[in-house]
């Protein structure tokens, strides 16, 4: 389904460009007037004097001229850039779910800033911007490389962006955890703060915005042609690849500049173009202009809210937070309205062996046994390591960790198999789809509420958070016949919202926050024996249930119509299986924190090894998942001994790296 048909179906009344732009300008003016007056005691007459060139003398004057006005200008510029680039990217890729946020740029910039602040703090002031931009461009290039630039119109690119986000984000988290004292000042940037101190940042940003003019001149023509499809556009003599690349780079350049100055503020670039289209902006040019205007309006409202709230509290209210609070529900709502029932796949069941032989099973079991052996018997020393029978105490430390890694790996893998078969997309996995995100949100919110992150209530909270997300998902997607896009975008919206909330918690800068980051990185360190046993028991129970339902899974993965024809109550089976997957995911997240990529990779590898029928895929994936997580847990304990990396981090690094490699290879071989 092309985006133009989507557009024409849902956005009926085309407005004339002039009318809508005029209306937007009026709206922006009105909002700006309110915005500038928020929390200012300066009388209007004095403001007018300052505008007309009077030199400031009181502190209030200085605040007005050097903090409020530059902030206002910044909001206008940043909002415009976000709206414009959002629209540009969405039109280029013909994908209404894309934005710099979903393409992984902010995590790239975040990672490079973290690296720089820790290892080359002296260069931050002079070269920080360039570095952040490099990171953003690289991560973006990675996403495009994964899916290929012709394949940017579907959901896969969103999932790839999400994977890159998780990969780079976990790398950054690992670095922060190993160097916690250095990273403190970064958290404000991560939370997205528009406060200004003088006009320096505005003046730094302005010359970089020349690109905007270029985009406004060149883009409309190109985008209009692109709507005819790549082939048609090429037939009219357009060098698509070059223009596409140029425009894309221009967009990312703009976004990176903005990111460097104000930090991570998500959602605006994603929502503004969607609003523009729903307002009836049909032509390419109209959409660009109206989106830019909407970006300004949205950011004015978000930042105005932040300003307004900060009158009541001495705490910093970052604009990124208010933007996310407004943006996340809006994103879910827009996805929901968009109701596309099935997305095109670019990626079918991975190639590889057709049958699962006994020999491969033997090899797998051997590998599994090896990891188990290493985790039980290897004892690290200062000088090296030795194999020794663990004594009672060491055993009491080790077995809960091993059991947790075992159960969590198997659980996530099984959840992954279910999700991939339900959503008919081999890129789906429970951690990308908001199940983990829901748990994290619950724990972080409760942390705000109580003011302290309590580990004892954590599991129950995490579990209820996950179940609540599931409930929302089921309610939302039921009426859309469980469309993958609703499921995925809800997950992404939640994940981004949580990211912002976590950053907000982090800017407090006290020692407690590191406990949260550590939990977020998925560590088995704090798991008690009773918790490990509980996880083990509960996971096996759900695994048993899944095995009982295996026929439904087979039928559903054969296709909805096939399943219906065989007399299966598809929707009910779907809801039940989704619940089981969510339960597995919630259990793991509750006990050891979010674990990424296992749910994605284990089913995939199982299929490549030839485990293709449901029962075999379930069992082999579970085995593989346990193997991965146990390996990660063990590696984390030995690789930087005596310090430890959490299993979640290692698994993201190994899994993420392997995943990116796999996708790239698959794409290249497709081409060749």
């Amino acid at each position, binding site marked *: 389904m092309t985006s133009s048909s989507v557009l024409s179906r849902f956005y009926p009344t085309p407005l004339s460009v002039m009318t809508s732009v005029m209306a937007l300008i009026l709206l922006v003016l009105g909002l700006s007037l309110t915005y500038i007056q928020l929390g200012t005691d300066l009388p209007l007459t004095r403001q007018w004097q300052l505008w007309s060139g009077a030199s400031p003398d009181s502190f209030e004057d200085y605040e007005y001229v050097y903090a409020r006005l530059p902030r206002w200008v910044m909001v206008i510029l940043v909002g415009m850039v976000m709206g414009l680039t959002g629209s540009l990217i969405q039109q280029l890729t013909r994908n209404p779910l894309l934005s710099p946020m979903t393409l992984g740029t902010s995590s790239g910039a975040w990672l490079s800033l973290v690296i720089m602040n820790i290892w080359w703090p002296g260069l931050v002031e002079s070269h920080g911007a360039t570095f952040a931009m490099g990171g953003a461009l690289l991560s973006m290039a990675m996403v495009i490389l994964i899916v290929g630039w012709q394949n940017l119109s579907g959901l896969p690119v969103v999932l790839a962006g999400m994977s890159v986000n998780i990969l780079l984000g976990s790398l950054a988290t690992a670095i922060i955890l190993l160097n916690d004292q250095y990273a403190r000042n970064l958290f404000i940037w991560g939370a997205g703060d528009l406060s200004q*101190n003088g006009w320096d940042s505005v003046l730094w940003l302005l010359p970089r915005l020349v690109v905007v003019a270029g985009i406004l001149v060149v883009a409309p023509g190109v985008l209009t042609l692109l709507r005819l499809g790549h082939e048609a556009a090429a037939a009219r003599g357009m060098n698509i690849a070059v223009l596409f690349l140029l425009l894309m780079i221009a967009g990312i350049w703009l976004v990176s500049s903005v990111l460097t100055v104000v930090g991570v503020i998500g959602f605006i670039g994603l929502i503004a173009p969607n609003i523009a289209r729903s307002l009836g902006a049909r032509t390419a040019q109209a959409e660009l202009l109206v989106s830019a205007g909407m970006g300004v309006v949205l950011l004015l409202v978000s930042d105005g809210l932040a300003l307004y709230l900060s009158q009541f509290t001495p705490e910093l209210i970052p604009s990124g937070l208010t933007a996310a609070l407004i943006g996340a529900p809006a994103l879910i709502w827009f996805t929901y309205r968009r109701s596309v029932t099935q997305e095109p796949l670019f990626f079918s069941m991975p190639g590889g062996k057709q049958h699962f032989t006994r020999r491969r099973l033997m090899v797998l079991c051997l590998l599994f046994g090896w990891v188990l052996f290493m985790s039980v018997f290897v004892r690290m020393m200062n000088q090296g390591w030795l194999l020794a029978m663990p004594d009672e105490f060491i055993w009491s430390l080790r077995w809960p960790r091993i059991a947790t890694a075992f159960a969590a790996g198997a659980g996530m893998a099984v959840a992954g198999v279910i999700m991939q078969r339900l959503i008919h997309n081999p890129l789906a996995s429970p951690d990308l789809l908001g199940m983990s995100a829901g748990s994290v949100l619950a724990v972080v919110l409760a942390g705000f509420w109580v003011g302290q992150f309590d580990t004892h209530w954590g599991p129950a909270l995490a579990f209820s958070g996950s179940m609540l997300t599931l409930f929302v998902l089921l309610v939302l997607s039921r009426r859309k016949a469980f469309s993958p896009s609703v499921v995925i975008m809800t997950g992404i919206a939640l994940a981004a919202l949580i990211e912002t909330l976590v950053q907000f918690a982090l800017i407090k800068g006290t020692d407690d926050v590191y406990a949260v980051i550590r939990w977020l990185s998925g560590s088995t360190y*704090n798991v008690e024996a009773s918790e490990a046993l509980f996880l083990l028991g509960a996971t096996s129970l759900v695994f048993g249930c899944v095995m009982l339902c295996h026929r439904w899974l087979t039928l559903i993965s054969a296709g909805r119509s096939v399943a219906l024809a065989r007399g299966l109550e598809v929707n009910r089976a779907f809801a039940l299986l989704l619940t089981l997957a969510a*339960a597995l995911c919630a259990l793991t997240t509750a006990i050891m924190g979010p674990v990424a990529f296992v749910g994605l990779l284990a089913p995939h590898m199982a299929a490549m090894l030839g485990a293709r029928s449901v029962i075999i895929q379930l069992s082999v994936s579970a085995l593989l998942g346990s193997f991965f997580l146990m390996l990660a847990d063990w590696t984390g304990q030995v690789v930087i001994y005596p310090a430890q990396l959490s299993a979640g981090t290692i698994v993201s690094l190994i899994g993420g790296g392997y995943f990116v490699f796999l996708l790239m290879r698959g794409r290249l071989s497709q081409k060749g």
Partner: protein
Amino acid sequence: MLIKDSETINTVSQSGSSAYERFLDKRASITEEKQRFPLPYAVMLGLVFWMGSLAVMAPEVSADERVPVNRFAGSPVSVGSVNVSSVNVPSVNVPSEPTEQGFIIRDSEKQVYFERPPKRIAVLNWDLAEQLIELEVMPVAMPEIEAYHEWVVRPRVSGEVEELGLRDEPNLERLAAVKPDLILIAHRHKGLQQRLMKIAPVLYFDTFSQDHNNAQASIEIFRTLAKLVQKSSLAEAKLQQMDVRIAQLRQQLLNAYRGDLPAVTTIRFSSLTSVYIYGDNSMPQYALEMLGIPPAMPQPVTQWGITQTRLLDLRSIHEGIVLYFTPFDQEKKLKKSAIWQAMPFVQAGQSHRVRPAWTYGGAMSLRYMAEALTESLLEIAPVPVPVPVPEPEPEPLSVQTAIRSED
């Protein structure tokens, strides 16, 4: 046959309308479905059951953890022997009569009887390690030694101390291998207490808390630790030295400020637009208090004593001095900025930098803090001080200072 909801029917994918009708009509589906077993409901029930059991489990765990509190708290007679290691409840070997050397240590939640002072103490927290080293006792193991040297700076840790890895997740196997006879922990490691007690007895100190005066608590802990390692006289001498030193510094300040000490607030920049203010319950503010200096911008009590806020909020400081801790990467840029320049205290020349100092330390860090702050204050004093502040002679004097009078 059934009620058609046009909207729902629409959303069902292309081929499915007849089967979807079956779905809506329960009776029809029951006759045709093979899976009549009420599995879905059973599973749902199971899920609800877990949630319940999880909720029940959670408080259980926390109650479990408080066992040592209940065993020891409030009963000064019930004492545990430190020799009984690797048991959860070290209250078995109560000696009938305390020997000459035996003594009782009271930590933040219990009392423990020691027959003799511990020799191999492992510390999981920087501030406790700092206190112990100030008492001239090296711990056998502590976490993140390299970073400690970079941030806490002094006192130095000797090269023989075992590294335990990250402060958040100290390596327990390594800790056990070091065979400590006592482990000192603070708030951050409370959850580990049960497991640590299998290695060695544990003393828990609430070093930074919203519910007490952090400085007084650190001095109390200093004394307790001194008693533990039998260095009480050293501790008293050091505390007295600190008092003398602080009285000296105060005198210098009084001279330099013509007998009228200004109010002072200390901050740390976190970006060009936001700052941490060291408020009530922070070590810098206590150091200032000991020097007899009130805060210029009083802040509410918090656990660590810091509050993050907007740079603009500093405008409410009209009278008094603002000192900011270095290092800050963008210090030059910030000092040039119009907003900073417009701050009333900057225009009055009432702001200055303080050399890098660790602000979450123990008792002796109060002295280093006071020295650093005095140094900075003297540099912007109305009466210039030509001679640098001399180090004091370690002579025992009895000078009453601010902190004493509070006791």
